């Protein structure tokens, strides 16, 4: 028998007559780890529970070798292991006895655990770092310990398919990584793994493919970098996030910036121009847009973190290729954007030849200027040109503030100004 995969075929799942997720098509092949993500209550857990009868399959089918709906419980438990969201136990089984229960589907009616069964239990307790808990009572253990014991119990079934429902929700960082590394290695060894995750970063880092459950539907699964874009995250979770490749892990990392609701009034108080770059504009973009302003962030290079945030928040800016220059055309576009603003704030970003046009456009816009910090030699990489423009701005009557935290109060003063 070839290693079976788990396959949802046009499956509609729910409870009784209530549909939760409809028309699901998803295949998890042997050796694959698929992550399910989505907002609370979207039906991720319902999808998992339907595989083992905890929720109803109202249409279509779920297949693991044969239809799971017609599989006797015992055979199903030999094929499919589940790690549900753990619940505290009131009964005082020892941790070892608890894990041994996972051998149930492999034992004959009156048989007790043989040497092979004990070897399996030893191994899974070792791999889940629970061997030292063996004699403890499960009603006295922490949620994290119980969660790892539940994984050990599921692994003691020696399943071909593993279903995980938030398997790291109670775990500390160390144990979470340990459990996920273990699950990853099980998948690499041929297990088919389907896991529900709240943490998008974890799903992206460990899963081969990710599928999103939202609005009663499941999106076709795709590699994390394709499935988790800032647009999808904004649509599904209502959160504006920067999605980039984490330089350390090499996997997709999702950094939430603001909730969509926080931006509901953005623009109602007009626009504020920002001369920024290298992360100097992030805090102000968040504060100003939450306070009801739109932001014009000038010309920014892709790869610059300010550009990523401006894109995530929908702030107006001219996006340049990495290391691209601001040409005359781009500078004119920036100047016109700044000219629509009530004022333009110059953030304490360093200036070189490449981003100097932003500062020139700010001065050229004719709008009131707010200069943050001082222009020092450490900031001026333009051979003195930036310092000259800075002095010119002062000469034109720019306001000077010491730090970014002073900016909002200063900006309010220009609320009455018509652009």
């Amino acid at each position, binding site marked *: 028998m070839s290693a079976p995969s788990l396959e949802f075929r046009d499956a509609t799942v729910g409870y009784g007559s209530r549909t939760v997720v409809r028309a699901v098509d998803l295949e998890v092949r042997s050796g694959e780890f698929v992550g399910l993500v989505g907002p609370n209550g979207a039906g991720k857990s319902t999808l998992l529970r339907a595989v083992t009868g905890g929720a109803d399959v109202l249409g279509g089918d779920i297949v693991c070798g044969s239809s799971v709906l017609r599989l*006797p419980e015992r055979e199903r438990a030999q094929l499919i292991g*589940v790690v549900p969201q753990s619940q505290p136990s*009131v*009964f005082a*089984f*020892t941790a070892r006895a608890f894990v041994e*229960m996972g051998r149930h*589907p492999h034992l004959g009616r009156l048989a007790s655990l043989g040497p092979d069964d004990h070897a399996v239990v030893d191994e899974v307790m070792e791999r889940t770092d629970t061997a030292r808990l063996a004699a403890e009572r499960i009603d006295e253990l922490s949620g994290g310990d119980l969660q790892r014991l539940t994984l050990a*119990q599921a692994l003691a*079934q020696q399943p071909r398919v593993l279903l995980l429902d938030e398997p790291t929700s109670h775990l500390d960082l160390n144990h979470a990584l340990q459990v996920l590394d273990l699950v990853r290695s099980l998948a690499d060894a041929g297990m088919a793994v389907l896991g529900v995750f709240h943490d998008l970063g974890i799903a992206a880092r460990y899963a081969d493919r990710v599928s999103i459950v939202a609005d009663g539907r499941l999106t076709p699964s795709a590699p994390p970098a394709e499935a988790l874009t800032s647009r999808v995250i904004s649509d599904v979770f209502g959160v504006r996030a920067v999605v980039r490749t984490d330089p350390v892990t090499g996997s997709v990392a999702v950094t939430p910036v603001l909730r969509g609701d926080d931006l509901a009034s953005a623009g109602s108080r007009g626009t504020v121009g920002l001369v920024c770059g290298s992360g100097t504009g992030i805090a102000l973009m968040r504060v100003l847009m939450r306070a009801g302003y739109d932001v014009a962030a000038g010309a920014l290079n892709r790869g610059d973190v300010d550009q990523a945030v401006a894109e995530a928040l929908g702030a107006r800016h001219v996006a340049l290729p990495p290391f691209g220059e601001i040409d005359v055309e781009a500078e004119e576009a920036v100047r016109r954007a700044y000219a629509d603003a009530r004022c333009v704030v110059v953030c304490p970003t360093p200036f070189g030849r490449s981003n100097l046009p932003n500062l020139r456009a700010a001065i050229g816009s004719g709008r009131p200027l707010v200069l943050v910090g001082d222009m020092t030699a450490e900031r001026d990489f333009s051979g003195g040109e930036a310092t000259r423009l800075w002095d010119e701005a002062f000469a034109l009557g720019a306001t000077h503030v010491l730090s970014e935290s002073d900016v909002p109060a200063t900006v309010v003063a220009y609320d009455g100004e018509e652009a």
Partner: protein
Amino acid sequence: MTPSADRRRAALTLAGLAAALVLAMLAGVALGAVPLSAEEVVGAVSRALTGHGSTLADAVVIDLRLPRVLLAALVGASLALAGVLYQALFKNPLADPYVLGVSSGAGLGATLAITVFGTSYAARAVGVPIGAFAGAVGTMLLVVRLASRRGRLDPTSLLLAGIAISYTLSALTSFVLVFDRQSMTSVVFWMMGGLANRSWGHVVLLTAMLAAGSVVPALYSRELDLMLLGDERAGQLGVPVERFKILALGAASLVVAGAVSVSGLIGFVGLMMPHMVRLVVGPRHRLLLPASVLAGAIALVLADLLARTVLAPVEIPVGIVTALAGGPFFIWLLVRKERVR
């Protein structure tokens, strides 16, 4: 603990309980209105087995005390077995046949059988157990139905529904008796939970019902362990939950019906014994089941001994003794649970 040490401890526990049961039964037979020595008791039993002679003391032992003591042991064992099953299936350490109303249901069924079929020996031997079984099953279904909300069984509702149904059915039983004054006295005394004037016929009947009811729990002790993890989890680990529940509840109803048929309503044994045994041997049914059964037998033999000796020659129905001990125990459990939360 290593598996072999585990097994040795289990064997020791069961051997100790079995020895205690033998001693309790010996005391039960020896003590009474006419005190007998251990030799007299053993002699009477061996003479009866070999078919030799019969003194007056032998008649007391063989015809009166021995069936009574055996019956007490069987009833205690049956109630404890049912208690273990209910507590596992409902994941509720406070469940027992009395609290769930199943005993009252069996009592009503048995009473109806008596009023319909009369008090002839054949009617009592066949009609009463069948009526009691039907009453027990019907009550169980009703209580579970009442306590379920959208397929979920709420533990508190289960106890409340059980107690409410229990009172209703007891009232119905009394109501039925108003129309059947002939059986009233005997039925009322039987309902209070008594073991007086029982014969070997009762012993045979209950032995058969307990044996039949023990098959499922003996074969499925692992499933009972898994049921404690919750229905859904038990299913994920390979238990055909719905079918297993029917089997196990059927077995529990059978032994409750047997116990009620011969001795009426005896409360709290099914609650107390499994609970106390679990504190000592842990929750695994492979040991919990036989240990609880033995403990239940010991408890009821001793309770019956108390019932007929404390105020001798006046005899108290044994159900009153168990209720006097069990009521406060139940309250203690409730209070303790409250404090843990």
